[in-house]
């Protein structure tokens, strides 16, 4: 990640290998962010692709002095996810039943017991379902803090809101998540 500004420079110079390097080192994070936000693997894949296309087109606007590349990438991804959420709000109401059916596709570990694997999968599905019921503001704050391990300052930069607001959203999001999980 410390190499990012250098890799970005190489990218801007037209080196395809540098872009691939950047893609490989950040695609997993972006994909997980998209998945936690949408709860669907296919949608997360499409969104990841869209985010990276946007990144590719606007890479020149990244300024290393303004913050880390990772934060900038998260901000672009988050804005795209919010746009996507607003765009597909109506569709989501009509297809809520499909959401229930969408499962977590996790690579199984060969050493893991099948029963334990099943339980872990069920827990993850439950967590994702609970996460989907949070409001977008709270969800994105919780995802960035508890799934992406960003600190409050970084989250404030990504969301473009004061640190106090971030803390408040995360706290309310966690409380809401606990209540939803209890009801499930």
């Amino acid at each position, binding site marked *: 990640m410390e190499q990012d500004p250098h890799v970005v420079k190489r990218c801007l110079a037209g080196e395809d290998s540098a*872009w691939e390097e950047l893609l490989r080192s950040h*695609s997993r*994070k972006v994909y997980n962010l998209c998945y936690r936000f949408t709860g669907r693997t296919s949608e997360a*894949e499409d969104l990841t*692709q869209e985010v990276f*296309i946007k990144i590719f087109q606007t890479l020149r606007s990244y300024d290393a002095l303004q913050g880390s590349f990772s934060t900038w990438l998260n901000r672009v991804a988050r804005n795209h996810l919010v746009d996507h959420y607003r765009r597909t709000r109506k569709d989501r109401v009509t297809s809520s039943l499909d959401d229930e059916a969408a499962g977590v596709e996790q690579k199984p570990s060969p050493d893991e017991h099948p029963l334990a694997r099943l339980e872990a999968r069920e827990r993850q599905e439950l967590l994702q379902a609970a996460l989907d019921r949070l409001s977008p503001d709270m969800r994105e704050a919780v995802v960035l803090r508890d799934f992406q391990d960003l600190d409050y300052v970084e989250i404030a930069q990504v969301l473009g809101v004061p640190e106090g607001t971030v803390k408040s959203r995360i706290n309310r999001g966690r*409380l809401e*998540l*606990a209540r939803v*999980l209890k009801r499930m």
Partner: protein
Amino acid sequence: MTHLELENLASDYLEGQLTADRRARVEAHLGECGSCRELMAGVRHALELCHSAEDLEPAPWLISKIMLATVRARKPSRWEQILALVRPVLQPRVAYGLAMAVFSFSIIINAAGIRLSGFHLRDLNPRTWAYQANRNGHLLIGRAEKYYYDLKVVYEIESRLRQIRQQSGSTPQDDTPKRQAPAGGSTDGTAPDNSQLALAGGWSLLRTALE
């Protein structure tokens, strides 16, 4: 401490960011209030679930797909465009075809009598092409005919010379040769030999043929 105050401090309490005083107040409230204790346990459980959630692995083809949609879709530079145009021409089959086309074209141009150095638009007129091709064709036939007749004459001369040599070779030689007037280029009063005779005969034949 009220329930609402505790709710506001839940995250800070679980992350260990409260001062000792506040922490003690929260714990005192939790000791008294069952619903807040339950809520705090629920938040702790939710946090554990979030932290234990493993990162999902994106599909292996996703990176290739993104690469295809970004780098491959990039507008190629001018040099890349030129190279892309030239690359098919450099294929052996196409290069051979192109060379043959150029060769054929040069033959047609040559037959039509068009000079590229002094090229005029009227040279493109099909009539001019037909006229020049006809003219060049006739010239070619004329040259071929002339070459054929020249060869014929040369062979004729050669065969005559051979005949003369044979005839002169079969004539019996007298011990005392007759003195004869010089017939060819010999002026020394001696009799001309066979080769001189053959040469003289050849020249007269050649003159006849050329006339």
